[in-house]
């Protein structure tokens, strides 16, 4: 199967005063076309750091990243901007991921316009995707502080999928949503996956949700991947003690 994203031996350390924290330590994985790969693990184990490195918002200390078989570990400028036409991210903190002085609609339009779409077309497109995410047109004219956390999260999902990327990285994209809206978003993500062959890296705390949407799941601990496999297998027959603990603490 063709892989959308391949990550090899990724490493990243952060400096906290004198001590170094190895946030990500030798992580390798692949995401195939149309696959949803889950990533679970306790808080602070390095999930968001992986997401940031894959999207090139942070540069890795070591390792390689391939998107559609092209190495993107060190691209910059124009090449990086074309990478962002294929890869999008839903941020962990949705409210902070919108500029407080720019209306949600304009934030969503920005990437469409950067791709050369006309203003009017981009406007209707933004409305369309807001509606897909369960928000009506009027939300396009609101500022981030004028909407709830969940609404902002949906707008942020709308922004990520509006340009139809082939890979979306969802960093706890549904954590602020209630069950009904979450179900609606999950349904939409599944539909996009089937219709457009979109792939996801789905960072999540909710193992039930992982079971629902992910084809494969990786369990992370202290910057390394300790276990991976089919969600049902992992949840029913965890091999690692750490995974067992994680599952026990949730169910």
């Amino acid at each position, binding site marked *: 199967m063709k892989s959308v994203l391949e990550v090899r031996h990724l490493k990243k350390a952060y400096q906290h005063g004198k001590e170094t924290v190895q946030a990500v330590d030798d992580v390798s994985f692949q995401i195939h076309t149309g696959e949803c790969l889950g990533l679970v693990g306790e808080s602070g184990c390095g999930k968001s750091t992986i997401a940031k490195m894959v*999207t090139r918002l942070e540069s890795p200390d070591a390792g390689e990243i391939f998107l559609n078989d092209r190495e993107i570990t060190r691209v910059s400028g124009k090449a990086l901007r074309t990478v962002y*036409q294929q890869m999008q991210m839903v941020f962990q903190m949705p409210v902070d991921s919108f*500029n407080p002085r720019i209306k949600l609609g304009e934030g969503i339009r920005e990437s469409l316009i950067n791709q050369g779409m006309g203003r009017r077309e981009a406007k209707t497109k933004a409305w369309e995707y807001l509606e897909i995410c369960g928000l009506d047109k009027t939300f396009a004219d609101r500022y981030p502080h004028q909407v709830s956390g969940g609404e902002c999260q949906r707008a942020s999902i709308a922004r990520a999928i509006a340009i139809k990327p082939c890979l979306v990285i969802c960093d706890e994209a549904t954590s602020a949503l209630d069950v009904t809206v979450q179900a609606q978003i999950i349904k939409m993500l599944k539909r996009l996956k089937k219709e457009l062959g979109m792939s996801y890296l789905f960072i999540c705390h909710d193992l039930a949700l992982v079971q629902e949407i992910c084809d494969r799941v990786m369990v992370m601990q202290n910057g390394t991947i300790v276990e991976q496999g089919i969600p049902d297998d992992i949840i029913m027959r965890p091999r690692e003690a750490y995974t067992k603990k994680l599952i026990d603490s949730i169910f």
Partner: protein
Amino acid sequence: MELTTVKATTIKIRTHKKQQDRIMIKLFIFLALVILLLLIAAFAAQLVPYDPYAQDLTIALKPPSQAHPLGTDRYGRDMLSRVMMGGQTTIYSALLLVGVITTFGTLVGLFCGYKGGKIDSFIMRVSDIFLAFPGMVFAIAVAGVLGGGIINAVVALACISWPKFARLARGQVLAIKNMPYISAAKLSGSRATKIVFKHILPNITGPILVTATLDIGTMMMELAGLSFLGLGAMPPIAEWGSMMSDGRSMLQTAPWVILAPGCAIFITVMLFNLLGDTVRDVLDPKTKKRPNRRRK
């Protein structure tokens, strides 16, 4: 018990609102006064009762009277007309100066803060050098090299004053550069220039605007100071600093000659400082609550 809490909160909210209303009223009053001042200065040529440059030695050094409310100077020129004309030079030079250093400093700060790396360190070291000089002395040296003239004085002061704004803007950029919305803008494929001017700049204009407004008064005094020393506006051009310099030998015999431009500077600088203070209160409500706020 709960009721009292509710009441207390309501009262607090109400006083807060009242305070805000008062600040807005203050802002409008000071803004109106400053605009009035700017208009008088702008249309000084049309408004003056006498030609500010016409000499008439028969009425030299006359004290304030009905015909000449602020008296006349040693060449018999009407002081009121000269103060109004001088306002044009002083106020607009100061505004030009502040405009130039704010724009230039902010651009440098944006560039350095966003780019980072070696260029940033280099430019910041250069600005350190500028900041290490005693400002006025350096300005006197630059003005001395460039020669007299109000434009040269503006250039001299601009040379030493831009680093303040560069530092301010840079610090602000660094504070918001790592916000997720900047990452989001990068992910949407925006170029660096678009990110800087659309996403960063609008979020840092507040503090820059406040500093710029508060700086107008300071810059006006420094410009007047250079002119006083004979390094700014050249006679016969009316300028408050050089007018004061003209009159300084006559402080005892004809005090109005020095008092008129002196008071003009005092009132104008104070007005701009009060405006700056109020702008800060409006834009930056966090510092408002402190009971013993130091006025600049």
